């Protein structure tokens, strides 16, 4: 039942979410054909672009930096979002300093905020991808998690 309710929440959501494909490196990285989801050994191999988006969004949010999009990809259908993912995105938007409760009724606003954070975060993922060794592709992600666990424990 809760799922239905959440789905209702996204009824008015725009059909697709976007990456900024004005930057070629980002466009290549998130390309469904040749991008990170097609690379063997990548942590995102055979994953959805949405998974990359959520990771990038969380990274951008942690950095606290929103980068507006210049050219939208419109490549990620919102109906593929799971309930938990919808609420994580909503939470990102709600936790903005000036956000009010009624942002929940403004899906374009939620998506815009999340896209801008993802647009920041994806650059970090590209940098991580660039520095990853073939023999140990998970190592930088392990480090990312360990660093954050340490920060949060402090």
């Amino acid at each position, binding site marked *: 039942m809760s799922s239905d*309710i*959440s789905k209702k929440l996204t009824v008015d959501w725009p059909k697709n979410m976007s990456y900024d494909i004005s930057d070629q490196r980002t466009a290549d990285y998130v390309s469904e054909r040749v991008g990170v989801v097609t690379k063997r050994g990548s942590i*995102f191999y055979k994953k959805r672009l949405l998974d990359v988006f959520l990771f990038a969004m*969380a990274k951008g949010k942690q950095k606290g930096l929103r980068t507006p999009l210049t050219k939208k990809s419109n490549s990620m259908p919102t109906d593929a979002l799971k309930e938990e993912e919808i609420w994580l995105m*909503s*939470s990102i938007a709600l*936790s903005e300093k000036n956000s009010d409760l009624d942002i929940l009724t403004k899906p374009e606003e939620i998506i815009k905020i999340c896209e801008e954070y993802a647009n920041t975060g994806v650059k970090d993922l590209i940098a991580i991808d660039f520095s990853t060794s073939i023999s140990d592709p998970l190592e930088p992600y392990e480090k990312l998690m360990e660093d954050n*666990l340490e920060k949060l424990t402090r």
Partner: protein
Amino acid sequence: MSRTKNVLRIAHVTLKNFRAYAGEIEFDLSLDPSKTITIIHGEMGLGKTTILDAIYWCLYGKERSKKGIDLMTEEGIINTNILENLGINSKDETFVEILLHDEEGIRFKIKRGIQFSKQSESTDRISNKNLGGTVPGGINFSPYVEFHYLHPSGTESDWEVFTKEEKVQEEIEKIFPEALSSYFLFDAELLNDFFLAEADEHVKNGIEKISGLPILDDARDHLKNTSRQIQKLIANKEVNSKPIADNMSQIEQAISDYKTKLDETEKRLDQIKSQKKGIQDYLRQHDDQEINSIQKRLDDVINTLKELDKNKKENDETIKQFLLNYTYKLLSRNSILETEKKFQEWENQGRIPLAVTKIALQNILNGHPATCICGTIIKDGSSERKKIDDLMKRVVDSTLIQHITVGRSILSNVISATDTQKLSSALGELKSKRGQFRMAYSEKKAIKDSLQQKYDNHNITEVQEKAKMLRTLEQEEITLYGNRKTYQEKIEFGEKDLKGLKRQLDAATGKSNKYQSENNKSKIAKVLSDVLEQCRNELVDQLRNVTSEKTTRYFKKLVSKKEDFARVGLDKKEDFSSDFARVEIKPNYQTIALDSNEKTKSLSTGQSCCLALSYIAAIREIANRNYFMMVDSPLHNISQEERVEIAQNLPSFLPGTQITLLVQDQEYTGHAKKKITGQDIPSVRDTLMKNNSVWREYLLEAKKEEGNAVSNTTIRKIEMGKTQ
């Protein structure tokens, strides 16, 4: 000329242009009876064996070889570099000079050399047996030898000198018979043969050499032959006896032919034995069973590796999923906490009411007049109306409230799932598992690589070929053994026939008195021959027994401190020496160690080495020649513990004997640790130094001179007490 030679020591050796030694090198050996050991050590291939070869060549004018056959090596006696770079009309020489002292002060100096001069350039290469190898053409070689002798009372001007080869050889044979040389100048090969149960031939040779048996045998055969010849001579003069004599001649010829065949068979059997040994050594290292065992272990380890790889990949996938699931949530954790904080504020403000919904408020206001559920009329502009209007503005609709309720619950679950302690512990566990897999994988991989290398080193085709060759040799050996038996039987029967014919002949010729004198001569020769045969057998038995006793005594001396012989499985007894009773040399010259119950004890390599040294010492003692002893690589192929044990006992083993050891660096200076206890086993050098047994040490070094592509060996004296 009196020659006292019970104790003979080499005082000084000089080598010039001999094999690896370009130019001149010289060294002294110990003359000190209380500190008898001189060590010459160096890396493999630097010319330790060459020193032994040089001394042998100097004494006997021929090359020492393992089987007593002259070697035709490619390099030859003269240093190749010197020969190749000799200019036209230039001359040089190669020589070896040894100075010997006996205990009474008699001095001998033996110098053997080859002078050579280049007449013309030539690209030809000539094989020269006297030079032991192949040499460039266009060079003249002039060998020479000098034997110098000085009585103790003589002065430097009193040296007697002989330069004729035959005379020199005669003199050398008097003081240093070649037959005994292998008991003074020998290498690890002789010692190893004792381990390989091939000592019989050495022991037989040794006993025969010290006994003078060949002379006895020759005399016996000669007398036997003389007796027969006389009989035949008589028979040929008598018409009645002639057919018997002819028959005897035929049989004698047949016996002689069979003896030749027997000799040839024996030689071929010796060759086969030697060839088989080489192949068996090879197959021992490369046998099929070993390959199969490696193959099986390799398969097992590859399967384990596959399993470990699968586990490792599964674990990596789990870690990947873990990172994908939790990292972005962890990164969002602060935002979620912030959101929840905001929800609580809004709840406190009544914007997310639990009981009053926006619809309920709208229903109140939609009434005419607007009436509260308690019945109170709410007038426009009243304070109640204002409160409700205000609430209407802030309160979200009921659907959204339901969303928020569900959403807050979901976010609360995320907060709970991203508990830092839980995540740290889960990640730690996954990484630790991965570490274990990686370590196990890497260990197994190393094992696999090592096995693979061993497997690759086995050339299966070659092994099969060698095995086939061995089978062929074994077949031939069986045939030859059969032939040998046949020849022996034929000879035996022939001898019997001859005896019968001899009796007939005796009967025929004995009737006539005219041959009485010849008959008597023949009888005397026959009796003497029988006496010699009996003497020979008695002498052999005596020598065998004496050699056994003396070998036993030396062996007990050399192995007396071996506490850990039980380890090699000789018996269940703790101490080998306490149980070891004696060495026995059997009539067939088989040499065995027996325990107190007269049971044969098997020997380790080191123990066999001790047995060989003991046997050599016994022969030396029987031959009454306490000469110098120069041994090449005596520590080869034996364990470090055994090396140290021998080093420990060697000085007291042969007191007063000058001992020169030519040893490899690693065998001399190397330490080791006991396998189980890890206890340090000292080096041979440390052991000898501790016992103060070494008179002097020399180190052989490779030296490359500027502009010379080939390096030469030089010898350097090491200051005692210092490391190299």
